[in-house]
């Protein structure tokens, strides 16, 4: 068989395909599903962004409040019966304040993030 014959066979290759309308209908259904998933992903990203912003603000505010209120609390504690008894172990009060502020800040941010996400999710489902 020569090259021309092979070319003719390949150039004349026109096989019957499954009906176009069926192919297109199936493809459009899949594209709709993809579109739905894309929309959901966009909404999820948006919700996450809002929740992160709320968490940052909440964490900052609570951290700042704790730091500002710390001298009042320590002052009150030192004059009341809650005063730390003298021990051999030296306790750095400032260090305790910063640790407490960081913990309060982190916990507030986490809670704010979870609550915002849950509320936004519920609102979207309604």
């Amino acid at each position, binding site marked *: 068989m020569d090259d021309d014959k*092979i070319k003719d066979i*390949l150039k004349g290759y*026109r*096989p019957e*395909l499954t009906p176009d309308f069926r192919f297109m209908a199936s493809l459009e259904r899949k594209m709709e599903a993809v579109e739905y998933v894309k929309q959901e992903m966009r909404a999820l990203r948006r919700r996450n962004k809002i929740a992160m912003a709320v968490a940052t603000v909440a964490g900052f505010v609570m951290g700042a409040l704790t730091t500002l209120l710390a001298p009042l609390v320590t002052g009150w504690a030192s004059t009341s019966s809650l005063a730390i008894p003298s021990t051999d172990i030296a306790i750095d009060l400032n260090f305790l304040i910063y640790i407490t502020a960081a913990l309060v800040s982190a916990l507030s941010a986490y809670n704010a993030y979870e609550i915002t996400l849950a509320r936004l999710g519920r609102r979207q489902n309604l």
Partner: protein
Amino acid sequence: MTREQFISYVEASQEAFRRFLLALCCGNHALADDIAQESYIKAYLASDRLTEPEKFNSWLRQIGYNTFINQARALKASTDLDAAADIPASEITDGAFQYEALYAALRRMPDKERTAVILFYIDDYPIKKIADIVGASQSAVKQHLSRGRAHLRGLLTK
């Protein structure tokens, strides 16, 4: 690219693209249609990255070729592609027999030679575009084409 624009591209390209995949899958209609659908979905998801719409067809063939290679690998792991090609496609009662000898010959060719022959002779693509599609050098494509032609000649003469 909007969804409507993409659908208009699909409508314009789907027949030739499915024909290319059908030859690549050696007449397995179900596999060719599956790969076509998967390729279009991949193209749709990546359509924002297509900067030159006039290159849609060759870009689509590149996606189709890669999807075919991945599917072929997965199929080889579970079953043999040759055996899969023998599964009768319902509803296609055509002309499938008309191309049986061609499909049988294509089935016996390596994927790279088969792709080069199909793209060059059936789709009329130049060597440079074929090289872009399969991700090989132009000299490699010329070699695949020459070997593929010789293989095909031998197989169809038998």
